[in-house]
């Protein structure tokens, strides 16, 4: 990885680097990326996932916690011209 690429990546990652850091990271990352080349030998597969074990989203069961009387709500709510009146924003 050359120094220009390091500067570009650092801009994307919102990092300010000194010239000294740029040259050090360029050398380190070049070193590291060269070891990633072995992956080109690995066979490809369509069968892969984002997690190492199956994960599925489970939603909580809907549960009625309170059921207020609508008539009482209308009576006790602060209203004006048929609208609910909320607190001032400013």
């Amino acid at each position, binding site marked *: *990885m050359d120094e220009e*690429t*390091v500067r570009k*990546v*650092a801009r*994307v*990652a*919102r*990092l*300010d*680097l000194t010239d000294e*850091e740029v040259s050090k*990271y360029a050398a*380190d*990352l070049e*070193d*590291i*990326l060269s*070891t*990633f080349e*072995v*992956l080109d030998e*690995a*066979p*490809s*597969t369509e*069968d*892969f*996932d*984002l*997690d*190492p*074990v*199956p*994960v*599925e*989203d*489970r939603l*909580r069961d809907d549960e009625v916690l309170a059921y207020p009387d609508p008539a009482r709500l209308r009576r006790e709510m602060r209203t004006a011209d048929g609208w609910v009146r909320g607190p001032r924003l400013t």
Partner: protein
Amino acid sequence: MNGAELAAAVRRADVGYQVFAERLEDPIAYEGDHAFHFSTKDNLCSIDFQTRSGSRILEGYRPPFDATAIERLRKAGGLLIGKTNMDEFGFGSFSTNSAIGVPRNPFDLERCCGGSSGGAAAAASLIEDHLAVGVSTGGSISCPASFCGVVGLTPTYGRVSRWGLIDYGTSLDKVGLLSASSAPIRRYLPVISGPDPLDPTSQTQPPLDMSGGIDSVAVPEEMVADLSDDMRDAFQEAVGKLEGMGVEVLKVAMPALRYALPAYYILATAEASTNMARYCGMRYGDIVEDTDLGFNELFSSVRSRGLGSETKRRILLGTFCRMVGLRDRYYIKALQVRQLVIRQYEEAFQGADAVLTPTMPYVAPRFDEIETMTALEAYHADILTVPPNLAGLPHISLPCAYIGGMPAGMQLAAPHWKEGRLLSLAERWESEFQYRIPEGRT
């Protein structure tokens, strides 16, 4: 142990070995309702201490809640005595990449504890009857357990809720336990395990089965080829002891494991680079008064001052691997390779109950040796711990030898969700092999 004895042990571990990022001050009220004492790595949120994850950028951050693992241990009667030192956000294998404190090895002050849960392993080693909560992404429980001569269990990915964990690699992070022997881990793993509505990855797990055993192990030849001579001899001796205990040892070939280290560093840094985006001075991170700066300049300034050099290196690497045109070559390929590695383990488990390797290629290095390592050499330290972590498999590191007075560990990996069989083998091993207690404990 009473409160005064615990306070003395905690003070000794902190003053002598820099174990804690923050801890209870003397005297410690350890009595009555408390069944046990525990510490957690500093990347798990807790109410009564700062949570800085080894980073300057989180200085002063006090979470308003407990991580699920901490909450469950407190409910079981545990007293949280402190937060343990670690590599910044988990980025390291020696706990030297910390802005808060670098823990020292209980067996030799000139040597590291391993990482990134280094303080946790040292606490488990130095404080009697202590339970240390650690976190592993690519080996951060096994590595320090091996270097500090303690037992470290990393459960299956998804077994323990990660609610309240400061993320490193979202598809890799696992909360686990370290202790001087396997008994406390057997007792408290069921406490922290189980589904948690606050963490979707914990929701699909089968019930924790603490039964099962190990009658046969597979030793992958590729993974023991590059050991130092003394480590190879020590490992062979441990294998001999296992055979003496009636465990069948099979030599196998697992060629796909050679892809594990690069695939891990791609996934871990790609995920970390997105997780680190939140440290920009808005919600987290030091807020600067200089309002003349535009957003990009403000973010860059906060991050450049607050993040350490290894963190920047991993953010650069991860950002690069996710860039347009490179995503398929690196990130997607690494996901595919993870699947190959999982399949390779599944094949091995058809012939054996667990896969056995040494935990680390060497004993704890000295601080002066670590200073002269290149980044690549440091990453290479994880060669044996990364494969089961990448595959999300439960694994345990057990002390198995002492080389020149320094502990060395062996690591067993079991199929997904089979933590019980690892702990059964650990108990059998402990009846045959005596763990040493470091001088610093007394």
